[in-house]
């Protein structure tokens, strides 16, 4: 098996392993779930805010979904297949937030947004 | 220039090189058949992709023709047009000559580098690799990269020049009549210099060290050794470099296509880009063919001139041994 020990095998084997590992990671994390939170200008969770999801690629920008926040101000999108998107939140009387740019490493990556969308309080 | 020790046994007699080493070479005729058989595939490829197209161009250059019309005899119409009325032809010809004349600049620089990495310093292979690394880069990508390095507003080159206090505001290198051609040439030299270096290194390494030692004993200094031994002995390599330099003025096509498109005006148009745009942008294939023929003859003449300067070694373009 000595002929296996050369730099060509090492390099391409290494690349193949890296690709394999990456694909396993992708398969485990590509449910297309986006979780986040909408808060008011004072920082309190906002229920019933509309959150809009916009797709962005090199060529197009188009709306891809809408949802409402629950009682804790949290929202969830499922099953998206995007890698570059914008989130925008608004609620009558509580103002507007965003657009917040979200870039992902692969299409449909699961993501938990750590910074909440903060409504600006304008009407 | 067939190399190898010529102490062949009598039975293989007059033949040199590897002659007679392959089975079935007992008879001269079978031998010849084998030689031509070996040459056939390469010759066929060159015939299809070089010679036939050249003949096609030569025939076309005496006709009026376009993809949409039947051919018609034109005599010397296109040649007359080119030589007496087409200023752009003369400008592109001039640009091509400048472009080729810049090859020696690259070759001199490459020779300097080659001499330095031919010493026994540490890490010489790393240096060799770095210098050669730009050659494999796709020409389209070279164009894109350098286009931005030369950019008037955000280009690195302008930034460095401004920081050094050489200029006050950015120069639009690729848009300027004066700077566009030198800029393209610089990018082209960057790409091809590693190739020159490797060719020259080949030549340097084939010089037997004993020659230098003998010269040193005779009291020749470094400069004398370089002029008396190095330069004469790397003449074949230098010739190959010049040929590559000439050819480079049409492999630079992609570069110019991406970086300037031949502009501003015709400031960076070389013959090859001009021929291309006449044929495909103006649909004048007949006229383009006439320029092609002139271009070919010119280059051939230059190659043979270079060959004469190199001491008639064209048949022995060698990169090893």
């Amino acid at each position, binding site marked *: 098996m000595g002929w296996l020990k050369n730099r060509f095998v090492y390099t391409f084997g290494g690349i193949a392993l890296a690709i394999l590992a990456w694909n396993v990671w992708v398969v485990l994390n590509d449910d297309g779930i986006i979780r986040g939170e909408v808060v008011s200008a004072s920082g309190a969770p906002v229920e019933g805010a509309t959150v809009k999801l916009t797709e962005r690629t090199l060529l197009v920008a188009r709306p891809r979904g809408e949802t409402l926040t629950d009682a804790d101000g949290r929202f969830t999108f499922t099953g998206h297949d995007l890698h570059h998107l914008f989130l925008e939140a608004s609620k009558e009387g509580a103002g507007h937030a965003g657009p917040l740019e979200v870039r992902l490493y692969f299409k449909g990556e699961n993501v938990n947004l750590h910074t909440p969308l903060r409504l600006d309080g304008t009407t | 220039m067939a190399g190898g020790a010529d102490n062949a046994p009598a039975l293989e007699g007059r033949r040199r*090189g590897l002659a007679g080493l392959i089975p079935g070479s007992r008879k001269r005729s079978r031998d010849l058949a084998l030689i031509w058989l070996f040459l056939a595939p390469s010759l066929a490829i060159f015939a299809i992709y070089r010679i036939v197209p050249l003949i096609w161009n030569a025939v076309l250059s005496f006709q009026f023709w376009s993809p949409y019309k039947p051919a018609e005899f034109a005599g010397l119409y296109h040649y007359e047009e080119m030589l007496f009325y087409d200023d752009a032809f003369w400008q592109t010809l001039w640009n091509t000559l400048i472009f080729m004349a810049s090859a020696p600049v690259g070759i001199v620089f490459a020779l300097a580098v080659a001499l330095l990495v031919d010493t026994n310093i540490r890490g010489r292979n790393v240096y060799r690799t770095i210098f050669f690394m730009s050659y494999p880069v796709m020409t389209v990508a070279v164009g894109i*990269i350098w286009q931005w390095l030369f950019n008037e507003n955000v280009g690195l080159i302008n930034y460095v020049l401004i920081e050094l206090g050489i200029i006050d505001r950015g120069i639009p290198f690729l848009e300027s009549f004066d700077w566009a051609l030198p800029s393209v040439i610089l990018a082209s030299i960057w790409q091809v210099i590693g190739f020159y270096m490797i060719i020259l290194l080949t030549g340097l390494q084939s010089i037997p060290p004993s020659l230098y030692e003998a010269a040193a004993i005779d009291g020749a200094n470094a400069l004398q050794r370089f002029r008396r031994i190095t330069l004469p002995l790397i003449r074949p390599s230098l010739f190959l470099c010049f040929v590559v330099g000439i050819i480079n003025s049409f492999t630079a096509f992609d570069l110019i296509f991406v970086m300037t498109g031949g502009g501003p005006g015709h400031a960076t148009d070389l013959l090859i880009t001009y021929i291309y745009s006449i044929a495909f942008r103006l649909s004048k294939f007949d006229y383009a063919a006439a320029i092609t023929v002139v271009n070919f003859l010119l280059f051939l003449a230059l190659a043979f001139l270079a060959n004469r300067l190199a001491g008639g070694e064209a048949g022995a373009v060698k990169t090893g041994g």
Partner: protein
Amino acid sequence: MSRYPHWPIHLALSIASAAMLVPFYWVLKTSLTGENIFTFPPSLLPESPHIFYYVDVWYAIPFLRYLFNSIIVSVIVVVANVVLNAMAGYALTRDFPGKGATILLFLSCMMIPFQVTIIPAYLITSEMGLLNSYVGMALPLASTIVCIFVFKAAFEAIPKSLIDAARIDGVPDWMIVFRIILPLTKPAIATNVILSFIWSWNSFLWPLVIVRDAQMQTLPLGLARFLSVVEDTTGALYAFCVMVLVPGLIIFLLAQKEFITGLTSGATKG
């Protein structure tokens, strides 16, 4: 030559190397940070680098398909070059009537730029039914003149006494070829592999005209295609440049040991 101190040589070479490497650095930096075409001065170090431009590119074009096509074409070209050039190079070491004319023909062929041959070459390829095929893309590069001369030089440099001695010892001919000739010409083979790989990997205009099917595009075509779509999005464009360059550079760096020896030590020292 070891009488001289080494540091001035190192200094000179380091400066020159740095100059040669700047474009590489710049393309890599820009692919990670993007470039705002309105900001001056440009930042020399990458600020908040990220790899999202690569993600954008990955999803904007069928990169793997292009890569696959490029590899297939290059493999055909490389194999054909090694075989055909070795044959032609060997033939040129022999004496035969018409040798001078053949060499002259080869040298003249070098002076015909490929761009002007497109239309007739296209018609011939079309007659052969090779449009839109890998072989059609590879054929014009299947034998290259510089490489023929590389082989010729390598064969000429093999000492004939070596082979005669082997033959007298009763070594069969096929073994002579594989045990003596091939090892001695290994550097020439490496040279052929690298140069023909570079030329086919970067070939642009020919694939452009003979490929009609989007599924058959090669990387340079993809790059030009991409350039027109994102003419102004430098981050993504540079990311694609890097993606196009990396496979070629990996191959080069892996094979460069043989290559550099191939071109520099010459066949005599094999």
